């Protein structure tokens, strides 16, 4: 018998800590960091226990306010009326990423923002925890309106954190981010209204079971698709990405990475679980593939001429998002064709989803090294850097590992997931695979540029020292994970990636987890 409340505690504990933080910060300041660390650690443990439940028992559902969390349908009702969490392999996969990233971001923040005013830091940690709540909620929820609410919690918290530095540029980036987010969220809400008007339900599973895919549903599909794609930073709606990533403090950039992944998750959830049984999946898959191709190519070509290290990396994250869209898009396009799906579609989705966690690890590491450089040099301009390898040996090592991983150089984990994508996409359409490889080459080229201009060359920044210990610990955790993922890709794919892919592909199981066997 498993503990039934794990999933809700994962949301509730960071939420409670977020509200306690300002109080503790005023009364007993030294205790604040301890409490936040413990709550994040506890959440991490709960996520692992939840993952264990999901991998051994299948779907976990949690009904809010019911007499028993397992009762999804009150007696006499054919549609669920309460808010329901519907957690499957894909959700816990995302939750694991969020748990790792939030711990690393917190550990890194301890030293990175030490010189800020302490009452400001109380609010910073509150918002950081609220971001965690928003993301966990987005990936767990089985209810469309609840998805919107958590989406907005995430947007508000993260745009306030983008503007944390209160410089003019940071406010500008934060303003752009909140405008983008709220426009996307309002169109998503409009789509939710369209669903409610037709099916009198807000639950994803209930809507998916009754969907008739008329003109209004198609309108809702495109609103959801484009709104979430904008929040995931796909080209040509990517322009907020370099602004927001460039101006936010490094730990927040790390959190923003996973926030865009949460939007990507919602995009996949909509296309697979909500519309997967009725829509024209080939078209839907091709839309994702086109988004992916554009993002990959335009992102990387725009990264090459950049002079600001964080903007350069931000364009790379757009381009890496393209790989995931490409892999999962190919899987979606052939989902209704069992032979093609088992031949290469499944592998393509595996590659795309494996790339998500790899991307979080190495891209997060790269942004943290950029933050380390900023911490010492107070500049993000690549022209003013040089010779840092003489002074910051650990940061240099971390950067090399991250850069090799993102460029897909064997034996790092980036290569493993890209290889899965290349080979399966080649079977779908060779042209797409060639573009993906070309983008990988260009990625390597631009990271050679960063490495050459920031770390190589004569020792011109003589006053620079290595960064403080907690920043090194934060980067070290991610590096360790990259090395482990590089050595044991088979283990990772079998334990966490396969259940995620199966959860997306088996659309009927998502519905029957809420509505039972009857339809």
């Amino acid at each position, binding site marked *: 018998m498993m503990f039934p409340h794990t999933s809700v505690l994962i949301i509730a504990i960071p939420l409670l800590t977020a509200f306690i933080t300002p109080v503790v910060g005023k009364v007993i300041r030294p205790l604040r960091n301890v409490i936040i660390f413990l709550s994040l650690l506890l959440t991490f443990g709960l996520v692992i226990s939840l993952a264990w439940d999901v991998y051994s028992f299948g779907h976990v559902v949690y009904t809010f306010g019911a007499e028993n969390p397992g009762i999804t349908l009150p007696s006499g009702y054919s549609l669920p009326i309460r808010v329901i969490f519907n957690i499957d392999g894909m959700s816990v996969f995302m939750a694991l990423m969020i748990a790792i990233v939030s711990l690393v971001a917190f550990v890194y923040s301890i030293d990175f923002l030490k010189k800020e005013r302490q009452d400001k830091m109380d609010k910073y940690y509150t918002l950081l925890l609220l971001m965690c709540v928003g993301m966990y909620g987005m990936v767990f929820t089985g209810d469309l309106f609840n998805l919107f609410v958590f989406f907005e919690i995430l947007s508000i918290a993260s745009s306030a954190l983008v503007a944390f530095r209160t410089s003019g540029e940071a406010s500008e980036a934060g*303003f*752009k981010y909140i*405008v*983008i987010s709220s*426009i996307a969220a309002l*169109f998503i809400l409009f789509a939710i209204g369209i669903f409610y008007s037709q099916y009198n339900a807000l639950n994803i599973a209930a809507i998916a079971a009754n969907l008739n895919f008329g*003109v209004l549903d*198609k*309108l809702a*599909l*495109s*609103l959801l*698709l*484009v709104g979430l794609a*904008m929040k995931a930073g796909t080209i*040509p*709606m990517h*322009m*907020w990405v370099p602004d927001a990533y460039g101006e936010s403090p490094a730990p927040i950039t790390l959190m923003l990475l996973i926030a865009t992944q949460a939007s990507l998750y919602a995009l996949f959830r909509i296309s697979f679980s909500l519309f997967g049984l009725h829509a*024209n999946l080939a*078209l839907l898959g091709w*839309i994702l593939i086109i988004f992916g191709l554009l993002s990959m190519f*335009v992102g990387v*070509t*725009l990264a*090459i*001429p950049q*002079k600001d290290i964080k903007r350069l990396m931000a364009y790379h994250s757009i381009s890496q998002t393209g790989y995931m869209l490409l892999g999962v898009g190919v899987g979606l396009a052939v989902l209704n064709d069992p032979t093609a799906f088992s031949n*290469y579609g499944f*592998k393509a989705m595996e590659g795309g989803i494996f790339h998500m966690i790899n991307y979080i690890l190495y891209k997060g590491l790269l942004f943290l090294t950029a933050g380390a450089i900023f911490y010492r040099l107070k500049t993000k301009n*690549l*022209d003013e*850097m*040089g*010779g840092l390898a003489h002074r910051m040996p650990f940061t240099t090592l971390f950067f090399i590992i991250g850069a090799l991983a993102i460029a897909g150089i*064997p*034996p790092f984990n980036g*290569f*493993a997931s890209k*290889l*899965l994508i290349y*080979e*399966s996409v080649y*079977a779908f359409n060779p042209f797409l695979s060639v573009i993906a490889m070309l983008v990988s080459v260009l990625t390597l*080229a631009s990271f050679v*540029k960063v490495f*050459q*201009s*920031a770390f190589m*060359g*004569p020792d*011109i920044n003589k006053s620079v020292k290595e960064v403080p210990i907690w920043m090194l610990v934060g980067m070290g955790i991610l590096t360790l994970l990259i090395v482990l993922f*590089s*050595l*044991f*890709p*088979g*283990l990772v*794919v*079998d334990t966490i990636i396969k259940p995620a892919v199966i959860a997306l592909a088996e659309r009927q199981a998502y519905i029957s987890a809420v509505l039972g066997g009857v339809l």
Partner: protein
Amino acid sequence: MVFGIETGVGTWNAIIFAVAFFIVSIVVYILSRLLFSGAHKEGEQAKPFLSGNEEVTKQHVAASNLYWGFTRALKSYYDVVIPAHTGIINDYIGWFVIVLAIVLILVEVF
């Protein structure tokens, strides 16, 4: 499979790659020792040939100086793409509306 993954066509195994990489590196090292043992270690012949220019060691090549050839070759592409990034929030939403219109037409027609 703990170490390797099936890619559908073949397999990928990081451990085998690392071992092979290590062995090849040793072979290359031994070969280089054997082949270049007669090479000059100092004097004019050991220096790189920089098109007859003076050798510069204490100068840093900054980021802006890299890859100008690449950006020059793709100038017509960059001339279109970079001005499109205006940084004005109205344009960001404009792209959203354009993409929404395209996707809406695609979804409704097919």
